[in-house]
């Protein structure tokens, strides 16, 4: 039904063109459908998204203030067995991340033991001195984590990034599934797919379990803090608040009252127990961080340190998904869990180290180079698709501030077919499962967000750079 790209692992088809077992049920259904059905449904889906307002905003692009993230109708399918392994690996990694954060903001045993160079913390803006010596309620730092996974072979899943600050995209996981179920209900009677729709309930439960012990009682007040309707992920903030039955607040709704953070309601100010903030650390508290911020709450850090509120994720968690720290994750996992990492890292050269820098400069045309603090696919170089001029320009940047960069091999990411005008065609994908952490444990929703590079051969899956999404299925046993 489609051709695979010769160098990459295709998740639907074997090299000989036969269908892999994960996709057997889907392909059988697919082959029975009239040829133009999926395409027709595609435009239905688009109209549906526009009407429901599932859009994202792109900064600095005035023409397209609200754009749709393209949705592809061919699901991305993971078998129950593959998922079990991923689940164990993710859980281990997230456990390590939380232990690591606690250690970094307390005794720093990992630095003392010589496993992590102290220089990585020095002058690193993601490391917040305000958090030193403080333990968040329940000891949880990363209440919500999105682990970005890439796949290069049958059993080869690797972690590309640990999003430990405020990972986004979970609303697409939920809406993509809703859309698929609305458009192809009979497909779901034929293939048994594990449910994702209870994520908001799980999130609400997990956040509530993290309320400060002195407050909250049996029904803690949870609120979602958004920068406002012009934020690119506003739809998601509103969606999650709605689904959790929590208030969606902005900085201007909040103030400090009697050592608590309170929101202005129509009945007066009411204290909040858990704040799921979708505002970056820097903007959280103008008294402590960026004094020009209007998105946060003056004095929230004092309230937080005084035990008056839970902030999810905790301020200062960004240090754990810093790309320079990332390269140490295998050591970090082993240090805190005493186990070998189940999920591998992508091999990474730290340009701060002179040997590594020399190698990176020699092989620039074959590598992907990323800014240590960057995100969203901005400020990165993809060697193989860059011109001589771009390479030279990037080389200059690298030489000027090598510590600002890491490099990775250009991975041959796995492919899953998308629906194109000419039929199914393989495109590169990644996967972001969503992980919830509370004192009651680590909870991973079976599925996640599959991002797909829509351009043939492209490896950039970021939605801000023209990537799309797919419904991600974990098969039931």
């Amino acid at each position: 039904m489609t051709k695979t790209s010769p160098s990459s692992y295709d998740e639907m088809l074997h090299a000989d063109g036969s269908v892999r077992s994960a996709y057997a049920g889907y392909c059988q259904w697919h082959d029975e459908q009239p040829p133009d059905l999926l395409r027709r449904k595609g435009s239905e889906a688009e109209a549906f998204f526009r009407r429901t307002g599932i859009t994202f905003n792109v900064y600095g692009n005035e023409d397209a203030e609200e754009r749709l993230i393209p949705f592809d109708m061919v699901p991305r399918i993971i078998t129950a067995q593959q998922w079990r392994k991923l689940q164990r690996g993710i859980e281990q990694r997230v456990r390590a991340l939380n232990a690591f954060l606690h250690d970094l903001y307390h005794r720093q045993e990992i630095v003392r033991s010589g496993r992590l160079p102290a220089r990585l913390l020095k002058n690193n803006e993601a490391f917040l001195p305000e958090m030193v010596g403080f333990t968040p309620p329940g000891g949880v730092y990363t209440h919500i984590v999105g682990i970005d996974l890439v796949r290069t072979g049958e059993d080869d899943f690797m972690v590309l990034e640990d999003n430990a600050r405020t990972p986004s995209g979970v609303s697409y996981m939920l809406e993509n599934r809703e859309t698929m179920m609305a458009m192809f209900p009979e497909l779901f009677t034929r293939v048994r797919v594990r449910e994702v729709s209870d994520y908001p309930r799980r999130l609400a439960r997990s956040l509530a379990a993290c309320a400060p012990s002195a407050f909250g009682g049996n029904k803690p007040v949870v609120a979602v803090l958004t920068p406002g309707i012009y934020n690119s992920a506003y739809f998601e903030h509103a969606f999650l608040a709605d689904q959790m039955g929590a208030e969606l607040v902005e900085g201007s709704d909040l103030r400090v009252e009697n050592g608590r953070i309170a929101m202005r309601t129509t009945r007066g100010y009411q204290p909040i127990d858990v704040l799921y903030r979708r505002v970056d650390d820097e903007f959280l508290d103008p008294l402590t961080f960026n004094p020009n911020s209007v998105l946060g709450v003056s004095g929230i850090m004092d309230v937080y340190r005084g035990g008056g509120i839970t902030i999810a994720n905790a301020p200062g968690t960004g240090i754990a998904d810093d790309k320079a720290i990332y390269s140490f994750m295998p050591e970090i996992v082993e240090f805190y869990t005493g186990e070998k990492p189940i999920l591998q890292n992508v091999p990474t050269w730290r340009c701060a180290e002179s040997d590594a820098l020399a190698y990176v400069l020699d092989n620039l045309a074959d590598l992907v180079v990323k800014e240590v603090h960057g995100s969203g696919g901005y400020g990165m170089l993809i060697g193989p698709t860059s011109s001589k001029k771009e390479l030279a320009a990037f080389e200059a940047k690298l030489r000027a501030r090598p510590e600002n960069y890491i490099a990775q091999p250009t991975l041959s990411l796995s492919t899953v077919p998308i629906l194109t005008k000419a039929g199914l065609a393989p495109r590169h994908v990644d996967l972001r499962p969503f992980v919830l952490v509370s004192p009651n444990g680590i909870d991973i929703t079976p599925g996640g967000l599959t991002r797909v590079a829509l351009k043939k051969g492209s490896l950039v899956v970021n939605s801000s750079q023209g990537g799309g999404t797919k419904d991600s299925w974990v098969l039931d046993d």
Partner: protein
Amino acid sequence: MLGRSANGIFWLFRYLERAENISRLIEAGFRMALTRDASDASDEWRSLIVTLGLRQAFEARHGTEYTGPHVFNFILRDKDNPGSILAITEEARTNARMVRGGITREVWESVNDGWMQLKEALARPVTETRLGAVLDLVRRQSTQVRGAMEGTMLRNEIYNFARLGSFIERADNTARILDVKYYVLLPSVSYVGSSLDNVQWENVLRSVAGERAYRWLNAGRMDPRGIAEFLILDGRFPRSLAFCYSKLRSNLASLAREYGGEMHCHEILRDADCQFHHATIEAIFEQGLHEFIGTFIRNNTALALQIQRDYRFID
């Protein structure tokens, strides 16, 4: 609920109501203009701009040349008019996005869908041929949102704030039409009513979608006093001042029940409400129709402000 959300809901429904009312006004003006010669038609268009309080802005843009397409395009979509139907529909949608969690999916989708359609329809200048369809679209959006609200929203504080927004705005609109057109209804102009008067009176009714209801109630007989009574005091007509205030009364009462007590705005409402209880149209004319309307508009604005204060719409 958050004070900011209450504010968002309140304004969402004010803007939708306003867009609907403006579209009725344009339609009535357009109809009048069609039946008149060029200079009278131009007077009609001017009167429409005056009713909407846009005279200065309009003349800055087009001078004193009041042609139909200039006028209705200015009201519908001109960038120099911050109160254009396009702008307030966008405001309505922005508010709906802000309070997305407080409204049902049906309400949100009808707001969003209407906005998308209107944005497309108003992407280019509207011609006289297209005008009817565009106005229809505006009204249909408002109707659809209202229907979605009635059919799907919980009858709680959110619903009450939505309704307060709708009826404060509707009362204001009807009053403003009366304020500009009151001279047409003054009995001194003509007792019998020339055919021109008849057209003028009917136009007033048409501006508030009341021409059929009025005719039905009065067996087709037009008289200015009856029309004024109908628009001010007739509790059966959904765009009359009395009707709007009976709704405000019941929505504020149910808020008081939900909140376990009355606020200052309840007092203001009671005072304002008195004017309908025992009033007769004779007494109103005696007092002076214009004064009556002026006082009404001021009280209505004060009530809206007090609601916003009492329920902490703003800090």
